[in-house]
């Protein structure tokens, strides 16, 4: 079973002369434990793809399946429950609630889903601890650095039993060291079995993914082959630093 599947998904905004084809016949399969990066220039449909994959918007045509379940057959309430339980979101600007502490922000999705406050709090603390943020749990977002805020946002995205992470430029507001830390955490989540789709225009961030899909004018223009192991670069001999360009 795939964690996320887009079958012939198209999205059209507007009508007549103002019609814009944001996505055209997108097919995308993301297996559990895989990280897929989606790259493309501004306006290529990256963010639209993510909002449709996250059930925040419906496609004009085609089908989206999350964990094998088709979104088209779900009521609004079913979709809301799926978003709370199975999908974690990470945004460029963190989207933490300023009036809640780090721990409360992380526990919130569980509480909204009906988990008792004490149990949600414990799960939130555990998620923060795993990301090295246990000592920041009682801080408010404006008392945290950008890198810490994004780590809290990742803790919130993975807390509970999430199967799918959707990240929109998760390191876009961070310097390269913090950006790398964020990608390392997302990749670690994937190694534990979570599937992730990361939208980015930054090749360094995309290179953490198992597969990189290139969008162009709303279509999948290309994608990378399965990555070779590191040994192909470190082998002795004249090609040790990779083929020249």
């Amino acid at each position, binding site marked *: 079973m795939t964690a996320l599947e887009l079958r012939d998904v198209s999205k059209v905004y507007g009508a007549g002369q103002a019609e814009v084809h944001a996505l055209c016949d997108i097919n995308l399969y993301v297996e559990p434990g895989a990280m897929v990066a989606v790259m493309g220039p501004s306006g290529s449909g990256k963010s639209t793809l993510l909002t449709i994959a996250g059930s925040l918007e419906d496609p004009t045509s085609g089908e989206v399946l999350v964990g094998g379940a088709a979104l088209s057959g779900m009521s609004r309430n079913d979709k809301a429950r799926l978003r709370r339980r199975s999908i974690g979101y990470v945004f460029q600007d963190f989207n933490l609630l300023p009036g809640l502490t780090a721990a409360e922000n992380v526990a919130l999705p569980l509480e909204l889903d009906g988990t008792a406050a004490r149990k949600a709090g414990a799960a939130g603390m555990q998620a923060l601890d795993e990301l090295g943020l246990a000592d920041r749990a009682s801080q408010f977002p404006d008392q945290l650095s950008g890198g810490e805020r994004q780590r809290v946002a990742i803790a919130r995205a993975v807390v509970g039993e999430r199967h799918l992470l959707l990240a929109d430029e998760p390191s876009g507001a961070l310097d390269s060291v913090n950006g790398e830390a964020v990608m390392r955490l997302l990749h670690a989540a994937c190694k534990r079995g979570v599937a992730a789709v990361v939208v980015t225009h930054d*090749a360094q961030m995309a290179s953490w993914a198992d597969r990189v899909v290139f969008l162009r004018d709303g279509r999948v223009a290309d994608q990378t082959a399965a990555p070779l192991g590191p040994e192909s670069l470190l082998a002795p001999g004249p090609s040790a630093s990779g083929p020249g360009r």
Partner: protein
Amino acid sequence: MSVRHALLALLSEGPKYGLQLREEFEARTGEVWPLNVGQVYTTLQRLERDGLVESDDAGEDGPQKGFRITADGEQELAEWLRTPPDLASPPRDELVIKVLVALRVPGTDVHDVIQVHRRYLVELMQQWTRIKEEEAEHDLSLALVVDAELFRLDSVIRWLDAADGRLKRAAAEPPVRDPSMLPRLRRKVGVRP
């Protein structure tokens, strides 16, 4: 990569044997630049000829021959560290040339050509990132080398992205060319004749 100066740097820490120099060179560059024994000894001989290192008088040529840096060698190393590499004139970059040529070849979609190279570069970056993830965390030298390679490849991809966008814009709105400006500009940016 200057093997000559890397060997001087290793000797600036104290006298060392030839074989030891090779092993330390490879370890400190994260084993990304392998070095053969011949290269080490040829370079050491030249350094000795130039008075930048001295060898044990008694020792025979071979892995057990010891070397130490001279005062001139230390001076040379200090100057080299602070001398910027030649980045002033644009290199004849094969990829830039391929994109420029693709514009002129009938029936060639330059955007497809750009995408072929972009994908290849991202695949290379994926391999480097795997090394960073798996090995570079415990090896600072390797982490620095991998970062350098990732930033270099990233800058090439950024150029491809910019070229892609610029060509798309130019197709919609062809730029007006002023040929009288060209010779002056070329001299300014140091383009080789």
